[in-house]
């Protein structure tokens, strides 16, 4: 199967990735090839098979919802690219 350039652009937008024209062409080719390869799964009859979402663990267990000490504001903001008054700083979202 062959992806169109528009499909590549659509997936890039869903992924919030800004790609160069050269990248779009390369990904179009490579992703088409990979999708061709994985298409062999379509031939397997799985009408009676349930999907596997989890292995080995019987079920995920939630811990009790009890407040515990966490990281300080300073520690949490230490890695932020831009902060102001103890908050993450971003450009205006609404006009």
């Amino acid at each position: 199967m062959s992806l169109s350039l528009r499909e590549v652009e659509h997936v890039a937008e869903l992924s919030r990735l800004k790609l160069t024209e050269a990248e779009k062409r390369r990904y179009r080719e490579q992703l088409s090839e990979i999708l061709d390869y994985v298409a062999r799964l379509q031939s397997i009859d799985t009408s009676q098979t349930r999907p596997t979402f989890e292995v080995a663990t019987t079920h995920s267990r939630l811990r009790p919802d009890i407040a515990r000490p966490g990281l300080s504001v300073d520690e949490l903001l230490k890695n932020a690219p831009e902060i102001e008054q103890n908050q993450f700083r971003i450009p205006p979202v609404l006009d």
Partner: protein
Amino acid sequence: MDDLTNLTVCETVEAVKRGEFSCRELVEAYLDRIDRLETQLNAFISLMPELALAQADKIDRTLWSRRKSGDPLALPLAGLPIAVKDVLCVENMRCTCGSRMLENYVPPFNATCVQRLLEAGVVILGKTNTDEFAMGSSTENSAFGVTHNPWNLERVPGGSSGGSAAAVAAHMVTAALGTDTGGSIRQPASFCGITGIKPTYGRISRYGLVAYGSSLDTPGVLGHTAADVCALFGLMAGYDPLDSTSSQRAVPKIHLDDQAELPHLRIGVPKEYFGAGIQPEVERGVHQAIETFESLGAEIITVSLPHTEYALPVYYLIAPAEASANLARYDGIRYGSRVADNDIGEIFRRTRGEKLGAEVKRRIMLGTYALSAGYYEAYYGQAQRVRTLIKRDFDQAFEQADMIAAPVSPTTAFPIGVHTDDPLAMYLEDIFTLPANLAGVPALAFPVGFDADRLPIGMQLIGPHFTEEMLFSATHAYQQVTDWHMINLSE
């Protein structure tokens, strides 16, 4: 080779305990060796010599006061110099994940498995190179340059835990932590001639492991011998309330018997893992090792894992799908790099477009496509159902055999650059390691010989869920009667 850097984990810990040398002397010996070899190998992204020496001094003081007071030693791995793959968080050490996206990210906490080892007394010398966000089979996808295979500098060390594997193989550390999502511990262990465990999914907490494919990711250990790897594994394993998928099953205290006998052990050899596409020397090496197991008393039987050929397409839908969701967090807002722009949408697009590497973007795109409206059922849904069939293959094989023996990789270490422009060819390197991740079962890789170019050959033993003890025991028995794991690199 320096005497100190030639000891196993068990020998090192015993010698430190007896006071034959101090932790500082030990750490200095390893740092010296790193100094000599690192420019050729590029095994590390970050080295922390000052921190390591300070930690060594602290452990020396603890040991001294305990010896004086006659207290029993509470630190089972006192002073042991190790390295940590740069996708596992170590407090106050930069954690890049091999990516420009996180080149300045300094985590304020320890991964649970790291925390447990630090409490046991290890000294972390640095963070090792990896394919970006652990996506790759060669460590070529790192923003910090490729790591070279210590056995042949023109070859890849495997990946994604290639930095950890090279560091252990070159005796720059005693052992190292890695992670295995589709073979990322076993394949580099195999390419570098060392031993590495991919534990049962949920056996070791994923807390503090930067997520790639959450239903597949497993932290683990690379070392020279099964006994070395087992010593660290036993301390890292066990339930962690900070990871809801970590298992509550008790961790057995593993005792490895030095008597090399394996009566009553049934080893299954899957016919799908041999034949076309495999380097003949690899096939021969693995068969010879299987004969050794037979000579130790094991019964060898043929088994079938009929859906093996579908593991690759299943993996390369499920792992990218999970990755596309996990890596959505890199938005340039809360941590990590940001490309400045006046528009918030452009911050997202430009930061991700410019700071993520080619393979990571490829997998995000592939995963997003597989999950997108109209394609979900045909791709992701079908992959999850075939995953059930792959898991069932193992369940049925384990009714006949206690464990499965197979090659780790179809070839020995390939030349740097050979697969760079062909992602599918690179993915095919993983065909023998992916099934264990999809089924969540444990697998232990170890060296079983060399090819004509003197590159190591590896094989893996795969067991049912939570049977690491059996895998360590069998491999330990093999390593009692062979010396592939003890053959060192000549400098």
